[in-house]
């Protein structure tokens, strides 16, 4: 437990020192999406009975919880390849579980902070959504998946450049195809089936349904938790590989 707290606390201290920069970074892209896609196009596009802005904000929440949780990989890599801080953790009498849990929780914390920023940014646009337990559970599950995946991949990459490639090939396509900007149901069945393989598709659906006050599919949450558990196990088994 002490190892987990130490790893998590270190990430929080780093976050504290970079808070202004981090908050600005968390706000830029959601604000651009809100202004361009939501505000400028919101009046001409209607999805079901909702305005596009109502549709977009839960999608942005899902996307940001993914990107911000995954960005912990960048911090781990900087600490590992440039600052060699990873060695300090490896030389300490803590278990791999403590290390992974601390880093995963740090990624999830960043994701939750980013969501609060988005919700605050959406206030001036006059959008009122439901922010109940299912909404927050969806964010927690989604950030758990991507934070765990980030830790696993950060342990396996051999350089910081490799990490950027993974972000380009995994996160960027998922951000656009995971039901964030358009309803997946409008696509052909084969495309829907393909996109249902992406965890973000389920996170977008769960978060959007709860935010719009519609009934949620329990299956989405179970699936996200299962994928998250798998990624967490993957991260645990990857730590030893980073030693050599």
């Amino acid at each position: 437990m002490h190892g987990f707290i130490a790893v998590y606390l270190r990430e929080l201290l780093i976050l504290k020192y970079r808070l202004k920069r981090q908050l600005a970074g968390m706000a830029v892209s959601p604000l651009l999406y809100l202004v361009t896609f939501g505000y400028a196009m919101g009046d001409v596009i209607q999805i079901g009975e909702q305005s596009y802005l109502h549709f977009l904000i839960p999608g942005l929440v899902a996307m940001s919880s993914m990107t911000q949780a995954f960005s912990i990989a960048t911090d781990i890599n900087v600490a590992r390849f440039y600052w060699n801080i990873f060695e300090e953790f490896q030389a300490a009498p803590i278990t791999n579980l403590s290390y992974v849990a601390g880093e995963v929780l740090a990624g999830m914390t960043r994701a939750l902070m980013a969501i609060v920023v988005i919700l605050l940014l959406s206030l001036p646009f006059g959008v009122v959504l439901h922010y109940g337990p299912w909404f927050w559970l969806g964010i927690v599950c989604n950030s758990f998946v991507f934070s765990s995946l980030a830790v696993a991949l950060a342990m396996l990459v051999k350089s910081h450049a490799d990490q950027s490639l993974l972000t380009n090939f995994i996160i960027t396509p998922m951000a656009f195809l995971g039901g964030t900007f358009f309803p997946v149901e409008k696509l052909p069945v084969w495309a829907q089936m393909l996109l249902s393989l992406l965890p973000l598709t389920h996170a977008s659906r769960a978060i959007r349904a709860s935010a719009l006050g519609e009934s949620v599919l329990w299956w989405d949450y179970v699936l996200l938790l299962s994928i998250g558990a798998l990624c967490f196990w993957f991260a645990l088994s990857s730590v030893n590989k980073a030693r050599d």
Partner: protein
Amino acid sequence: MREYTITQIQTIMISIEDLHKSYGKTQALNGIHLQVEPGELFAFLGPNGAGKTTTIRILTGLTRLTGGKVNIGGSDITTDPIAVKRLCGIVPQHINLDSELSVYENLDIHGRLFALSSDVRKQKIRELLEYIELADREKDLVKKLSGGLKRRVMIARALLHEPKVLFLDEPTVGLDAAIRRRIWALIKRVQRDGTTVFLTTHYIEEAEFLADRVAFIDLGAIKAIDTPGKLMEQLGVWALDQINGDDMETRYFTTRKEAAAYSASKDTGFTLRRVNLEDVFLSITGKKVL
């Protein structure tokens, strides 16, 4: 495989038996055997790429061994790495402090990793910052410290949990002569306070000044191991360097008189000096440490 009785184990702090490490087809360590006694200051001397850092990384659990046994303070690194890590403090070759955090925060995180209670952490951090003469810099961000001060903070951090063994990997590399001597004084003080010290270096004078015993390592194997004095005695006390074209020939003598008599019998120029560990390393491996 050698076996130790209980009494023997208590007199050995570090025991390495037939240690092997390979990276693919490259053999980094090739059957290392050595023992270090409690309170000893042991130096691993060798050129870059000899296997010094690999050995220290295996001893501290940072790298997995391919073959052999490592036992520190009675615990096996392979079967009980957590117990071994509790006994060890490590100062790596490169700076691995969190430059964005303060000196105090860096030490505090380390104390938490080693499960020190809040009161103990605060007390030990204050004591150690006094010890390294940095008590007035605890709130400074690490990125504002010089290389020498960072090195001192790293030594303090490694001592925070009161390790039985302190591992120092090239502790003075890149530091100027004055700062290097301050670090040496600090290392000697740590040893006097009862900690076993295992250091790697490729600085001859560092090994000569600090070490109770020295092991020469080259190509992943130990070539010689003894006290600096005994290693040098094998060659003599005085060395005469004679430059022949592009080459330098060195002859060794037990007395200054013998050396002077030899140089007088030749009509070329000589440089007379005391034998050092570099001479021993050169005579054993055929190459220089640096």
